[in-house]
């Protein structure tokens, strides 16, 4: 691992601790929902981070199809995997917020359903990469990723163009978010972005090392076969 890695790890740990303090202690309590609204400081930044990672996966998949670059292929795999982790956080924290506020854990609302479909698409993508052994797997996976990415704008804009039970967008959607809440939200997003970067970096290095090990195995069995 390069020298920047421990620095990023320390910055991420400090930022996550500060963001947690800001979310639990500093942010004002929302008048109608009370403390349960603080789930928003983990739910929304996780969703934004997942969207960003799926966008990176989309760009890396296109790059792979154009250049057949191994780096682009690894970046696509890594961003999808870490994106699924953040999307899982969104799908778990959302219902935990919905239960006390809406009185139900889940409803087949457009935003919620499309987010579940998005998660299923990227889980399928990861399963394809994990269990398909053919030489064309990265190409097929890249095509799946490009089609899967079409669901990201649908999820994001579903609450702009359709009547849904999900709350309106907090930024740019006409909603009035307290500036102190917006500040805490952005600190938490910065912390989650650092965490995503750290996880992607670790996973990228691991994938490179794993491929070298697999290549050495293949080379070894080839040499044994020729003797």
């Amino acid at each position, binding site marked *: 691992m390069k020298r920047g890695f421990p620095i990023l790890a320390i910055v991420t740990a400090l930022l996550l601790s500060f963001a947690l303090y800001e979310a639990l202690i500093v942010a004002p309590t929302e008048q109608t929902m009370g403390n*349960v609204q603080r789930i928003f400081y983990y739910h929304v930044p996780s969703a934004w981070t997942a969207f960003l990672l799926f966008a990176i996966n989309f760009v890396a998949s296109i790059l792979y199809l154009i250049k057949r670059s191994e780096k682009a292929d690894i970046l696509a795999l890594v961003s999808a995997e870490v994106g699924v982790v953040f999307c899982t956080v969104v799908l778990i924290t959302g219902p935990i917020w919905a239960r006390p506020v809406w009185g139900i854990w889940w409803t087949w609302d457009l935003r919620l359903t499309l987010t579940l479909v998005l998660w299923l698409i990227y889980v399928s993508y990861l399963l394809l990469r994990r269990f398909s052994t053919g030489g064309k797997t990265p190409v097929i996976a890249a095509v799946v990723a490009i089609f899967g990415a079409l669901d990201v704008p649908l999820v994001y804009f579903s609450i702009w163009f359709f009547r849904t039970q999900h709350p309106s967008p907090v930024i740019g959607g006409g909603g009035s978010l307290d500036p102190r809440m917006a500040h805490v939200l952005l600190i938490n997003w910065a912390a989650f972005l650092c965490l995503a970067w750290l996880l992607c970096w670790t996973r990228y290095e691991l994938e490179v090392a794993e491929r070298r090990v697999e290549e050495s195995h293949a080379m070894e069995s080839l040499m044994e076969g020729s003797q």
Partner: protein
Amino acid sequence: MNSMHYLYAAYIATWVIHGTYLTVLVRKYSRIRKEMERKPSAISRQTSART
């Protein structure tokens, strides 16, 4: 359950998910490291051929 319980549940769930993923990465790291220690010369030949 009062609202604080839901809040704690959501925050703990978030860290359990990230913690589980980190554990998966650590286990993967130790497995690859063992493999690399077993055959260091072959892997270093692969890496130098790439660079």
